[in-house]
């Protein structure tokens, strides 16, 4: 991948120049993060969001930073990126706090993956061996040991994997803090302002269209999540293969003084909810997710989806039975074809991608912000994001589909 000649590197921007305006399309965690870093480096940057910033996938997420327990066969290439970003998170949270005085609830208790019956435990042992082969820091617990750590877990639990380094944040607070940090640093945020088209001239990005207005720009960062693919004006060669992947979720209110659990818990799933997770936030909300549904842009809740979430969560943590169900929602993961993010430059000079983060948008946000803003200001593609450029799809057997 090194020195890839197919990518036309951008020259570093002259940040003092009047024309050096950078438009970021999408005010989610990636758009705001990149915007904040760019604003810190002195760039003129505007984030456009067709709704309110941070209110789509960023808001719908569960805030888990879990590269260990989410490691999957065949996706080993993503692991170093996820670990690098995970290592950045604590500092990122601290920086946001000192910049905005908003505490994003970075929690370090860890994550427990539990098995309920013999088949589950066998599957977990398989997972555990896989994690060990990747040299990830995980620990096998008996059912007894798991319940010692989390006494409200179901009695049926027969074994668990404890992953001490899989942490979490409150993603909604992160969005709020990033928005404040971005604005404090001089960034411009235009909400309820839809970019309807990217305008190119001689194959290069020249402007963005907003309703009747055309705004000249030096560069466009496309961070529009599940909507990234279908933006008008994108040259075909630079169109990211991203689709919406629906997830239904619910929140249950625990007593924040006396929560049922303090670790993030993962349990066995089914065909609708591949695995159930329960993420306790410090304000007592217990986030339970999520379905994985190929339903296009539909974000409706279904009785079946919510039922599966409740049933699977109750199997693991029966104590939720009497607690208030305070919220239910569905969001759209921006899923790329290989579930890994699509980052960096394209064959259209001036068009930079930061999309396709699938279920890892919160986890990968600090690294995405840093790597994309570094690229825009220096013209250099960091080695971390080299494997995640758009051109990896060119050799795909179905690229022409």
């Amino acid at each position, binding site marked *: 991948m090194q020195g890839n000649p197919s990518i036309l590197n951008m020259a570093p921007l002259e940040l003092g120049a009047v024309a050096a305006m950078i438009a970021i399309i999408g005010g989610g965690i990636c758009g705001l993060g990149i915007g904040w870093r760019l604003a810190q480096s002195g760039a003129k940057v505007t984030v456009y969001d067709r709704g309110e910033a941070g209110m789509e996938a960023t808001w719908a997420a569960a805030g888990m930073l879990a590269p260990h327990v989410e490691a999957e*066969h065949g996706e080993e290439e993503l692991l170093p990126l996820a670990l690098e970003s995970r290592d950045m998170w604590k500092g990122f949270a601290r920086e946001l706090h000192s910049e905005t005085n908003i505490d994003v609830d970075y929690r370090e208790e860890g994550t427990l993956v539990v098995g309920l019956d013999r088949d589950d435990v066998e599957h977990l042992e398989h997972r555990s061996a896989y994690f060990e082969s990747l040299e990830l820091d995980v620990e096998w617990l008996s059912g007894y040991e798991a319940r010692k750590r989390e006494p409200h877990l179901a009695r049926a639990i027969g074994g668990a994997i404890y992953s001490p380094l899989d942490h979490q944040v409150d993603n909604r607070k992160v969005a709020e803090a990033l928005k404040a940090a971005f604005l404090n640093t001089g960034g411009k945020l235009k909400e309820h302002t839809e970019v309807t088209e990217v305008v190119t001239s001689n194959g290069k990005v020249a402007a963005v269209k907003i309703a009747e207005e055309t705004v000249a720009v030096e560069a466009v960062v496309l961070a529009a999540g599940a909507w990234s693919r*279908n933006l008008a004006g994108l040259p075909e060669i630079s169109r990211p293969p991203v689709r919406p992947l629906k997830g239904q979720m619910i929140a249950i209110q625990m007593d924040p003084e006396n929560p049922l659990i303090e670790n993030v818990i993962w349990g066995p799933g089914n065909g609708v909810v591949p695995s159930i997770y329960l993420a306790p936030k410090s304000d007592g909300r217990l986030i339970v997710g999520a379905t994985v549904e190929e*339903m296009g842009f539909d974000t409706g809740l279904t009785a079946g989806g919510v039922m599966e979430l409740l049933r699977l969560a109750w199997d693991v943590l029966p104590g939720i039975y009497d607690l208030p169900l305070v919220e239910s929602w569905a969001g759209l993961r921006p899923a790329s074809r290989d579930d890994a993010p699509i980052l960096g430059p394209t064959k259209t000079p001036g068009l930079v991608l930061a999309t396709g983060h699938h279920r890892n948008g919160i986890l990968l946000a600090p690294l995405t912000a840093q790597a994309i803003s570094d690229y825009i200001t220096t013209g250099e593609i960091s080695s971390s994001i080299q494997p995640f450029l758009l051109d990896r799809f060119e050799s795909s057997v179905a690229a022409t589909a």
Partner: protein
Amino acid sequence: MDAKVANTDFSIAGKTFSSRFLIGTSRYPNQQVMMDAIEASGAEIVTVAVRRVSQESGGEGLYDLLGDRFHLLPNTAGCFTARDAVLTAELAREALETNWVKLEVIGDDETLFPDVEHLLRAAEELVGKGFIVLPYCNDDPITCKKLEDIGCAAVMPLAAPIGSGMGIRNPYNLRIIREQCSVPIIVDAGVGTASDAAVALELGCDGILLNTAVAGARDPVKMALAMKLGIEAGRHAFEAGRIPRRLYATASTPTDGAIEL
């Protein structure tokens, strides 16, 4: 491949296929792996759970990626009654413009075994409505025969429970089904690895439909290729005709003319 040694083609409802491998689209690590695995499998028929996959995905959905290049076979996964299954098949016919359907009527959540009563009812209704029906059924010769008599274009007995990877649990039943049915027999569910697929074809089954054994393998693309080769090997062995089993050795080299020392 040399025509003399290639597997013979097989037909379902008058349509001829050169691959005896039918593959599913669920539970792959991601869409890229799915496409690469389907490519490696050589399959021409690809099944899709029509209830679970929307057609509106802005150009990156399953139908966008696969629709032009494969024979998409909608299935009625998740249906528990004949009524459900018939409605789902009709929905699929509208949406995908195909009258082919893989008919699944599940009897129970834990085992995912078919509900035979509802399956027969749904099959009869769908055949009456002009569908090409490929029913997922038990490895029960009587049920298979009834499905054939109803007018199903193939029968698809399970080898073991869906997703279990337990392999061919009852080869004797499959042999009986082979002897009694003249429609294609496609083993659907339970295949865990390439040798399972080979065994099914050696028994005279015409094809294999599977999903989890590939999607859940450590390397799905490689497993798709292994299954393809297993199916081809099994079919070759069936066409070639195996030798009878015997307890004692027979020397492959005659002893005539051996030097006596």
